[in-house]
């Protein structure tokens, strides 16, 4: 299995450098992953409640702060800012430190800024639940929160930029392009979106357009590059093979950079905006498949003939599921951007399905891959249970697929029913009833899966992981040869010691 991956044995200095980088970052990275996982669990429960209410409006109807209008935005915002952004911060900070081969010297500041971010997310979520939400999609946190989040973002990521800037040794690696791009794109997108919606006194229709753009820009210009950067790191790292093609990587990166910023305004098709805005948005969304093809071909060709790695390694399995999710995102985006679908789905559930596919089906899967890789290194313990990992994988995969399929299909039926304006509105709701029930059940499954993930991660955080030399692999016993690379003499020593 590892015949050709044995070729390069790292020297002692490399090993020491890795160890010192991991030690310098163990607290902030673990903090981001663990608090992200907690917010993810809360977001999933809120998603379950919101989805339940969409078909049975009497559910929890006595509780004011869990009404649909509050539970739903709290769910989406926590998914993006509580889980997504924090997982991304952990990945960016750790991967860029490793790739620029330097220890982090600002651990304390990153950790403080991370606490500030969590405080902002907590205050914003409580604001939404208590009825102070702003009502702008994905900007529902009360308007006082966003400068706090932006400030803490700067203090979390600026060190990674400095590390890359100060590292010597010439070449930048593919993963670094994506991660650095994400570091720069986030503040641009975040600041532009919030300034035009909350600060500048522009035309309200234009503000709504920028609000719609912001959601797609956040997905395509922050979550996407972080996920792809992680995938480009993990695939060659775990298989020990070089990335298939440099040219293809270049092509995929620039395709994303050129196409990504245009997407989003198709939400406002039919609104009194210059027509090119929604239609360019629709076009860009349908073109997302181009970087999808480039990345998919590149990573899958790298893995060709090494499928055993994907089966055995939890990191690789999640990552490849994420890459497939990116391809699905491209196809779905293309389908939903056709003028007919655009018109029909404008006020339906389909948009939600697309967002969940992007955040949970694509980004989160790659982030889980990264977390399963990074946590054993920074805690110096192995994952406790391959069953936990397996359950997490299958429950999440099937759960997210079900949510996505139910939302998109249900949304199409709902949209078609809304077009028949002579019949009553409740008709349209009843058409998607069965799909809404399916979504609720699937959120339940995802909740169980992420519960296993959360427990597992918290046990690792408490340093209760296995003290073993053997990685936790899926399928096969613990003592089999590792797909993460050959075991070294350190192992012999500890065997003796034990």
């Amino acid at each position, binding site marked *: 299995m590892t015949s050709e991956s044995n070729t390069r044995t790292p020297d002692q200095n490399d090993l020491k450098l890795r160890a010192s980088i991991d030690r310098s970052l163990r607290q902030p990275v673990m903090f981001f992953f663990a608090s992200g996982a907690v917010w993810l669990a809360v977001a999933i429960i809120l998603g379950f409640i919101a989805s339940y209410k969409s078909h049975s409006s009497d559910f929890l109807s006595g509780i004011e702060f869990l009404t649909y209008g509050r539970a739903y935005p709290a769910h989406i915002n926590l998914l993006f800012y509580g889980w997504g952004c924090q997982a991304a911060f952990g990945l960016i900070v750790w991967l860029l430190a490793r790739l620029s081969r330097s220890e982090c010297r600002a651990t304390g500041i990153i950790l403080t800024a991370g606490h500030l971010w969590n405080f902002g997310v907590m205050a914003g979520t409580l604001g939404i639940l208590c009825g102070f939400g702003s009502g702008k999609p994905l900007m529902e946190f009360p308007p006082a929160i966003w400068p706090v989040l932006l400030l803490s973002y700067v203090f979390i990521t600026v060190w990674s930029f400095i590390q890359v800037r100060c590292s010597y040794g010439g070449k930048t690696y593919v993963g670094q392009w994506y991660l650095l791009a994400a570091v720069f794109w986030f503040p641009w997108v975040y600041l532009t979106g919030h300034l035009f919606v909350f600060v500048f006194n522009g035309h309200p229709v234009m503000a709504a357009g920028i609000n719609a753009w912001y959601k797609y820009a956040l997905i395509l210009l922050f979550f996407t590059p972080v996920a792809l950067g992680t995938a480009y790191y993990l695939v060659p790292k775990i298989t020990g093979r070089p990335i298939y093609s440099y*040219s293809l990587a270049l092509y995929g990166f620039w395709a994303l950079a050129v196409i990504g910023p245009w997407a989003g305004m198709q939400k406002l098709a039919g609104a*009194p905006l210059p*027509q090119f805005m929604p239609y360019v948005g629709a076009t860009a969304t349908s073109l997302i498949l181009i970087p999808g093809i480039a990345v998919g071909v590149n990573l899958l060709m790298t893995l060709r003939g090494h499928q055993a790695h994907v089966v055995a390694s939890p990191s690789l399995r999640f990552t490849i599921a994420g890459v497939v999710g990116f391809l699905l995102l491209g196809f779905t985006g293309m389908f939903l951007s056709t003028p007919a679908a655009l*018109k029909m789905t404008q006020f339906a559930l389909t948009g939600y399905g697309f967002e969940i596919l992007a955040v949970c089906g694509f980004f989160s899967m790659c982030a889980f891959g990264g977390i399963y890789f990074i946590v054993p290194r920074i805690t110096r313990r192995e994952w406790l249970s391959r069953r936990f990992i397996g359950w997490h994988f299958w429950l999440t995969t099937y759960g997210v697929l079900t949510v996505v399929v139910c939302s998109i299909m249900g949304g199409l039926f709902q949209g078609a029913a809304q077009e028949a304006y*002579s019949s009553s509105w409740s008709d349209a709701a009843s058409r998607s009833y069965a799909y809404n029930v399916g979504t609720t059940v699937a959120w339940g499954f995802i909740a169980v899966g992420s519960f296993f993930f959360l427990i597992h991660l918290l046990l690792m955080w408490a340093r209760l992981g296995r003290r073993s030399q053997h990685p936790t692999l899926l399928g096969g016993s613990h003592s089999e040869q590792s797909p993460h690379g050959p075991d070294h003499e350190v192992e*012999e020593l500890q065997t003796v010691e034990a």
Partner: protein
Amino acid sequence: MAKSQHTNKIDRPDLEDSTNVVEKHEKLLEISASQARENQISETGMEPVSLWVFLASAIVLLIGGGVLGAGGKLFSYNPHPEGYTRPDFASDADTGPTIGPIVEALAKRGKNIYAKCSGCHGSTGSGDGNQYPPLAGSEWVTGNTARLAQIILNGLSGPIDVAGKTYNGNMPAQAPLTAAELAAVMTYIRNEFNDVGDVVSVEQAAGAIKVYESRPQGAITVKELDADHDQMLEGEVVDPSTSVNFETLQPAAAE
């Protein structure tokens, strides 16, 4: 290595002279096994990009171009893009609602009937300002319904003052009209061009036709209108928001 663990046959490197145990243990303390077993990332490969990738991208681009092309004139502000506005109730293509307020049901029919009036009075009811008087803002339209019904049924000859201006022409008789048609066109011109806000019911219109039939043939004059017909039509006043079936104009059963 893994095998030795199972067979419980352990190599003992610390008994070999060649191994510095202190040094090894130091290393062990600072480097975890997961870090030690990691591969190094190799240089990125230089495989040529397959033409299939470009072909697939070209197909995606074509589809994207189709989406962009569907946008039509990209730099125009079109407040009513095709497919995003409802068709007009009165248009032929529209099947429309079958149940709704009586004022809408009558106005929808009235618009079709008004088509033959619009040649003189204009499609917006503004007249031509010279020979044909306007209906919009005309006190003869907004005022008593009996006068209006008789003008429509009998036609009108001789001078008439409309909106502060005297017109002297001949309006041809529009009869025969059914009661429903008369009610529809009167409701239409009273509510579309003016802002009266009531409906002329079919029952009221039937009464007006009876009056018309009992009167000798020939166009009516202003003098006769003022003398005999300066009143509202008799019959029960219908609430304009009453829900009716658009086909039969009968009250719809409460749903």
